[in-house]
């Protein structure tokens, strides 16, 4: 067994991850607002996963004999839209789309940001150039950067994922770089270097795990921003295209029938608001639990 691995196993007593997870959850639940947010999130995630089971109609199943049914109608408790499509089904399937877009774009953004942040923080020579690129990306209001990418690639939900991923990179890179700069000077990193551990090993095994707390908080908060931005881009016609049951696109379509059927625009808006609210308050709770001094203004 190599020397570095021996040190890892013998001297570093790891806290059981389950225990740490439960502690964090308990701490989040202590805050009433975060607890409410967590409940809402669990409900939304379950609804998104079991969407085909808990709905009686397909999200795009039309029934032209039953258009514009109001809330509480028989068989359609959230009513139907102008094509007679069941609103409950479209909302629930919309949840899976929003969560999927959110998770994938935040995930890609985090991976990009982590790699850039680790490289910038660890290698002085790369720091200047990487951080200037990050500064350049920060020079655009987020939604504008996303629009630039969509203008380049064309309008589609996949391109929204790419656009929002790129938008997520600079914030994450700054957080990781900041953590790396403080961690890399610590004695245990010097010790790892002195026994010949490779840079990749030091970066991914010893430095990155110490950045996880701010990254979890950043990722949760980013989910809120991502869901808001995805719906905004779809509302503008730059993201999901009809008949995809995406919440923002549903509001845009529903806005044309505000007089006859206001619920078509109201319900998807409430769905977005609840989801974003839940991610925001859970993010706040996580920050208090994991990293109270964290500055998210990056």
């Amino acid at each position, binding site marked *: 067994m190599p020397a570095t691995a021996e040190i890892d196993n013998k001297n570093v007593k790891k806290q059981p991850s389950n225990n740490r997870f439960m502690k964090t959850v308990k701490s989040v639940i202590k805050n009433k607002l975060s607890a409410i947010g967590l409940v809402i999130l669990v409900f939304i995630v379950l609804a998104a996963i079991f969407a085909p089971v808990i709905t009686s109609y397909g999200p795009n199943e039309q029934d032209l004999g039953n258009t514009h049914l109001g809330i509480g109608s028989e068989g359609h408790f959230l009513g139907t839209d102008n094509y007679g499509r069941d609103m409950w089904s479209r909302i629930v399937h919309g949840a899976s789309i929003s969560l999927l877009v959110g998770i994938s774009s935040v995930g890609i953004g985090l991976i990009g940001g982590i790699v850039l942040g680790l490289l910038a923080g660890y290698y002085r020579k790369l720091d200047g150039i990487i951080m200037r690129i990050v500064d350049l990306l920060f020079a655009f209001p987020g939604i504008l950067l996303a629009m*630039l990418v969509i203008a380049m690639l064309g309008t589609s939900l996949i391109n929204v994922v790419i656009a929002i991923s790129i938008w997520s990179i600079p914030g994450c890179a700054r957080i990781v770089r900041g953590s790396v700069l403080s961690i890399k000077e610590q004695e245990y990193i010097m010790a790892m270097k002195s026994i010949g551990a490779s840079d990749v090993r030091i970066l991914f095994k010893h430095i990155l795990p110490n950045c996880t707390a701010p990254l979890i908080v950043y990722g949760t908060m980013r989910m809120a921003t991502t869901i808001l931005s995805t719906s905004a881009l779809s509302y503008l016609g730059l993201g999901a295209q009809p008949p995809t049951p995406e919440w923002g696109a549903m509001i845009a379509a529903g806005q044309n029938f505000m007089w006859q059927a206001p619920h078509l625009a109201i319900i998807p808006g409430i769905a977005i608001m609840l989801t974003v*609210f839940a991610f925001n308050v859970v993010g706040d709770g996580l920050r208090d639990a994991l990293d109270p001094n964290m500055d998210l203004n990056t």
Partner: protein
Amino acid sequence: MIGLITRRFFQLLLLLLGISFLVFMSMHFAPGDPATIIGGPNATSEDLEAIRKDMGLDRPVLVQYFDYLGGILQGDFGYSYQTGQAVTEAIITRFPTTVKLAASSTIVAVIIGVIAGIISARKQNSWIDVTSTTFALAGVSIPNFWLGAMLILVFAVNLQILPVGGLNAPFYTLAGLKELILPSITLGTASAALIARMTRSSMLEVVRSDYIRTAKAKGVRKRPLIWIHALKNAMIPVVTVIGINFGTLLGGTIITEQVFAINGVGRLMIDAIAARDFPVVQGTVLLVAAVFVVVNLIVDIVYALIDPRISY
């Protein structure tokens, strides 16, 4: 201070150069041949070749970029593929509307945010504080395009007391003010929420500081203590948030303009993206990004001016 301004000014120039390069290259490598867009589906290959030559698209990309940059310095952002109108002219006609919207939203956000933040801090943990904090949280969670649609539904469609959209009358007239109300609330709500949160936490921090305790001990009454002694220092971080938010609001106008059918730069940009009108996209994106970084620079300088503890 002069050193800071000079240094930041040169950094700004470099940043603007970087932005122009990024935007130009993004549009240059976007799929879709500009010659085909201009020539239409019936254009022959000779026609397309002639258009490319005429527009200088057959030259190396870097030459095209520097040519574009030279044009920008002379106020020439090129011509729209769709209408043939000069991009500069299209922007100049619409930019004042966008600024009007961003400025009025900032005013709404500052008034609501600062007052709510101060009251919240003064009545910490009371029902007013809880309500204000919850509203602040809801404010950052509401999609502004949806809020706009709901405001239209209530005030324009049902009550019929405010116009559905447009921003055409001068702002100093009653009609102009009426037109501004709904879009400003739509755009300003999220910022108001942020400003309220920042004001609250900043006030709470300041009222616990030593100099406030000394002022209290000297017998300063509660009202001047809060509104004169505490507020002055508590506003320092708030000013930064307000400044940075102005830039963000400029980005937000893109969506609000669409909701209220306002003919501003944002709407111009969205129409151009949909039509793949690259010169207009380039011009509008560059403009908004440039204003954003310039505003951020001004905020930095103002921050350093109002807080003598800050040094760069």
